[in-house]
Every structure is written in C-alpha cells, then in structure tokens.
C-alpha cells in the first residue's frame, strides 16, 4: 500500500479526497488504480509530475513503489 496525496488543484478530480491509500507496485499500477477509483481523472493525473519519497519525477510511469511509499502529485515544472 502506498500513501497518495493530491494538491488542491486536483481535488475536483478526486471528489475532494486529498489523501488516499492505494495498493500498487509501480506508478503505472497506481495510475490505473486511481483512474478506476476516480473516473475521469486520467488526463489530469497523467499530466502531473509526481514526487515519490522526496524525488520529483516529471514523467513517471515505470518507477517502482516500495510498500509505505509517499506519493505527492504536483504541477509539472520546466523552468527557463
């Protein structure tokens, strides 16, 4: 199980739920589980960056998730 936290601007896609626990072994499974739980959230979630245990990933998909991992969704950044 991993702990997933959503920023304010994604709460409209999660019915207001800010924190959830999800069973997933990698980001791909996490996204699929979240899309099942929150129908219609697919595009918004896939466009987000995620931070996994402190490391920020702009295009996460295959990254493994250890049990008890903390996953934060956040806005993508490219910089200038």
């Amino acid at each position, binding site marked *: 199980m991993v702990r997933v936290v959503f920023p304010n*601007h994604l*709460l409209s896609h999660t019915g207001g739920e800010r924190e959830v626990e999800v069973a997933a072994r990698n980001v791909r499974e996490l996204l699929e589980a979240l899309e099942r739980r929150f129908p219609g959230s697919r595009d918004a979630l896939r*466009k987000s960056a995620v*931070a996994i245990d*402190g*490391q*920020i990933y702009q295009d996460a998909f295959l990254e493994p998730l250890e049990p008890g991992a903390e996953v*934060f969704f956040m806005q993508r950044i490219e910089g200038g």
Partner: protein
Amino acid sequence: MAEAVDFKVIGTSPVRPDGVDKVTGRAQYGADLNLPGMIYGRVLRSPHAHARIKRIDTSRAEAIPGVYAVICGRDFPRGQSGEIGGEGGGDVADLAKNVMARDKVLYHGHAVAAVAARSPRIAEEALAAIEVEYEVLPPVLTLEQAMRPDAPLLDEHLYTKNLPEKPDKPSNIAAVMQLARGNVDEGFAQADVIVEGEYKIPMAHQGYIEPHACVANTNEAGQSTVWCCTQGHFEFRAMTAKVLEMNVADLKFIPSEIGGGFGGKTVIYLEPLAVLLSRKSRRPVKMTMSREEVFRATGPTSGTWIKIKVGAKKDGTMTAASAWMAYEAGAFPGAPMGPGAMSIFAPYNLPNFKVEAFDVLVNKPKVAAYRAPGAPQSMHAMECAVDELARKLGMDPIDLRLKNAADEGTQAPYGPKFPPIGLKACLEAAKRHPNYTRPKPPGAGRGVAVGFWFNVGMQSSAEVHINENGTVTVVEGNPDIGGSRASMCLMAAETLGVPYQNVRALIGDTESTGFSNVTGGSRTTFATGMAVVKACEDIIAQCKARAAATWGLDESQVEWQDGHAVPAPGVNADVKPLSLADIAANAARTGGPLLGRASLNAQGAGASFSVNFGDFAVDRDTGKVDVLSFTAIQDAGRAIHKAYVEGQMQGGAAQGLGWALNEEYIYDENGVMQNAGFLDYRIPVASDLPMIDTEIIEVPNPSHPYGVRGVGETPIVAPLAVASNAVRDALGIRINELPLSPPRILAAIEAAEAGAR
C-alpha cells in the same frame, strides 16, 4: 557516485572548445546564415492592445514587385489539440493564436500578417500596403482592472480553472492554485510577532542581446529546414509541427549558436511564419526581429501583486505564513504562478501556511519562462517579510533563517520531503564570509535574502564516438548557451580517463542526434551530462570487451583505469595496458567502430538553494542606488567547470539587480509599451556593478554520477529582495514596489518626510 578527491579534470576551468570561434567572430548565430536566393520576411503587428479583426486585405501588398508571399491568420490551420512546452508554452491553440492572430489581437505588437520579399525595404513597403480593419476594444492593463468582475474580457469562453465548481461567468482569471498545510489562523494566533506586506513587481524581459532570428527553406515535397537560435531545437520542431499540423519528420531544425535565452527562447515566434512563407514563396526566407519587436512581441515574465503575512514566536520560530499572489499571464493563460506558489515558502520549515495564486489575463504579450519562472516574484515578498520579522525580533537576518531553515527530511510546501539540500550550508557560509563579518560602509544599507529553484531532469540523448587516433567526439542535442560543451567534455574526459584536450563536442540537429529537452531548467549539466557519462560508460564496456578479446581473457578479467584497459588484479597475464588510442587503432579487427550511446529521462534533479547579500548606498538627493558590494553563495552539488558555475551566479545576480533597481515595462493608457529599447529599458551596464563575489557550496546530489545540481536559475531569485532589504536598511523606509528607480526612491523619501511633518 565519485568522491571529489579522485577527480582529474572535474572542477577545473579549461578554455571552452567553442571559445576561439566566439572571440574571433566565426561562430554563427541565428541571423548570421545567408543562403543563395534568400529573401526577407517581416511581420505586420497590431497597433492596438485589444481589438477584433474585422477584415484583412493583402491584395495590394501581393501586387508589389519583389513581394513573393503574404500570409495572415487564414493561412494557418487551427493547430493540433493538446498542450506543449513548459512555462510559456501551454495550449497549442493559444500558441498558434499567439504566433499569428486569428479573430482578435490581444496586445500591441501581436502578429497580424507577414510578408516575404526580395529586400527588407520592399518587405516593409508590403507591410504598409496590407489593409486591416479593427474594431478597437478597451484594453485591460493591470491586475486590479483584470480581476474586477466587470472587467472587459480577453476571451469570452474562458472560465477560471481549478475552482471547486465551474463558474457561471467567464473571467480574465484563467486559473487559481492553492497550497495549504495545517491551520494558518491558529498559527497566527500562536505568534508573538506578525508582519504583513503588499508588494508589486513589474513585467520584465529576459533581455538577451541577440534578437530572435531564423532562416526557413522548404522543398517541393513540403519538407522544411529551419536554422534558428533556440534553447531547444527538438521542442521548437515539436511546437512548429503542432501549430502547422505538420509531420515532425518533415521538419528539420538546426540550432545556431544562441545569444542568450534565459527561458525566452523556449517558445516559437518567427519559425512557423518563416516555414509558411518559404513554402508559399519556394525560396529560403530569413526573418529577424528588431529590438523593439523583441520587447513588444516575445515573452517577458509576469508582473505580480502579492500580499504576504508571516508570524513567529519571540525566539524566531515561524508559526504561520500566508500569501495571496496575482500573476500577469499576458494575452493567453500560462503565468508561472504554480512554481511561484510552490517556491515561496520552500526555504522554511512551516507548520501552518496557505498560498492562493491567480493566473490573470491582461492585454500584454503572452509571458514566457524567465530564469526560475515565478520564484523571483514570490520569494521577494517572503524574503522582505522575513527581513521585517528580523527587525521586529531584533535578530540577525541569517540567524532567523537558520532557525527555520528547511533541511534534508523537511517536508517541502509542495509535498515531498527534501532529499539532501544545501540551504543551511549556504547560510552558515554567509554568516562567516568576510564580506558579512566586516561592517557595512558608513551610510550604506545591507540586505540578505535566500534563493531557490527546483531544477528539472527530463530527456537527453548522447553519443560518443572514438576516432581512430583515440580522440573522442561527443554528440548531444543541447544548444550551448553558457559553456555546456566544456562541461560535457570535462565529464567525458573524467569518465574515460583521457585528457580534456582530446574531447570535442558537437551539438547535433534534429536529424543527427536523439531527442533532448531544452537547454534551460538548469538541466543541461545534470541531465545531458548524465547521458554523456552513460554513453562513455558504454564505450568503456566495449573497450574492455575488445581488450579481453585481444588478450584472450574473459571480459570479467579486464578493468578500466586512467584511460587504459588493464587486467584485473589477480589476473595473471603478461600484457601491456591498452589505451583508448590502441583499442581504436585496432577497432576494425575487434568488431568495428567504437560508438557509445545513451538516452534517458533524468530523474533526481537536486534543488539548488542560495544565500545572497550586498551593501547598497542610496543618494537621497538623486534617488540613485549604488551597489557597493554583492556576494552570492550557492549550492551547486558539484561544480564541473568552476568558472562557468561562478558565471551563472554572477549573471543571474546582475539580472536580479537590474530588475530590482531599474527594469520595468512602462505602458501608456492605450497599452503601448513606452520603453521598448535598451536606452529606456535599462539593464545593468558595466559601470553599474561592482565585482560580484561568489562562493560555491557543494552538497552533492546523490542522483548524479558526479553529484551535479543545476545552478542556472537560482541566481536570479535572491537579488531582488537583497536590494529591497538593503534599501530599507539604508533609507529606513520600506518601498513596496519595484524597481527601486530614482523617481520611486525620491517619492518615498518625500512621502516619509511629509508624514513625519
């Protein structure tokens, strides 16, 4: 990750490989290419800040002898759907409308039509012959105006995003963002001291000395080659393909040398116009912007309006902070309010905070990324508030920051816990720096501030070729804005164990090398460096295999040491070490040419914190502010090329100081920029600045083979508040609006004196 003591070349400052061509004028920049048969493109730009286009008649222009092609909005497809690009990109439909207006013009200077003609003079004549009928609309020029419920709308179909419920009326507020933790009301209730402030920062431009320029050439199969100055030719190709609904395979982008970008050259402006003009005219078309066009019609950064409140206990422990921040997006959505909101409290361990940020349309050019987009504006407000807090508490400004400093394990305001970071190391280095321990000159004021940027990784590709004499060619896809070729060569030389002079670097075009994201985002030394190192490791593996085959050993019995294949310890073999040159000379017999490659999406970019301070003098009679000294301390993770890391710190400081002391977009009531040139948009000149002292801190980033953190963007952040805080210290007056130019300083002095009377 390698230990610092082992390095042979990393950390030195050799001459860059492209240096001789740049000091002799040989290096070719965007406007330096001339092709046989080339004609010249020019853009017709809107004279109004806000208007509907009723009619465009290009017939008279097309009839002028020497005019080869004329285009306007109706020559463009709608553009593919979706989003593209970083801060400054956004929705493809918006990008398409920005490069060429369709039904509305949304800022003075917005492109309305373009021509290609035999000479620039004939092109100008053709522009004058294009008839455009406008229905002029009232312009919206400030955040206050734009955010009023009765404001004229730039886009009647735009509804504010990210609100809990979709609003029933359209708005100029394109989106809102909120970050929160704990309970700020309770937090403020626990505070012994509270400071509040309201700060305004103007729109400013990146100010690169080279205007945008490109040459496009299209053949009869519809394949186009574009030569242009760009921070990212692959991203430019992708954006151009989406805007023109072209197959990327039919677009080849060749990056010229680039005369500065700072984020402003991560977005397309002229390129799709030049492609269409070259397609229509069947000639190569050169397009360059004038300096005026650069100011009026490219992508400056947001002006902002920020209200901030911070509370702390008597001993300096911060208990709560809140910020309300409005950012100008310009003509289309996409202000960097997200990064601004995520960075404002990043240096501090805050139990309670709340940030509300707004992306607001105004009739000004669509903003683009500018070095740490969003952070200079937001962090200026917090760093000024912390300065006021230090005064109220009677604490040294560095000590107050040390007391609340984020460190490894602190939860960042945007969610995750920080991995190892260098903020405390920078603060401690500042505290003991001789420029800080010495007293300020009499009458001067001293200011301190912290800077930060996340830094990104993203995609890079690299190839390494070993020439038959053992010299090395590195091929990668990142335009060299600030010495990155040198850093790639240093990392390759270190990894392979060969002299730096044996390594050459080539920036490949979109057909010659694999995809790379922009040179920007403080990512090049980090991510492209990582790809170069991996490609070198690929070479080493191949060399060990070749040596093993040559010696009749197993691969596992061979090691690589100091640029040579050697038998592993304990292996009994009477052989001489084989150098890279030896192996290359025999390559045909052992399997063919030596070619190493790597491509990756680099993860684990480490954030870079900085601490800056400076002594400033204010002349009370003229209002002029002099920078007497400035010191920049920053965590670079590991400095690959020491002098170019210092260069980033000094250059960013100069930009930040320019923005703080003199730079601003000045508009009249019709939305026309009044200072669209370097005379009156006054960037720092050599006589404005002292030597800029630097100290590089190295808290290595565990995710990079050499510990690199990006350094390019952080340097612009802290100087704004250093200036504000220093002027506050010198004058005894807090001025809440930048720039701190002479008229503003004098008005503040007058107001204070009037108030005291």
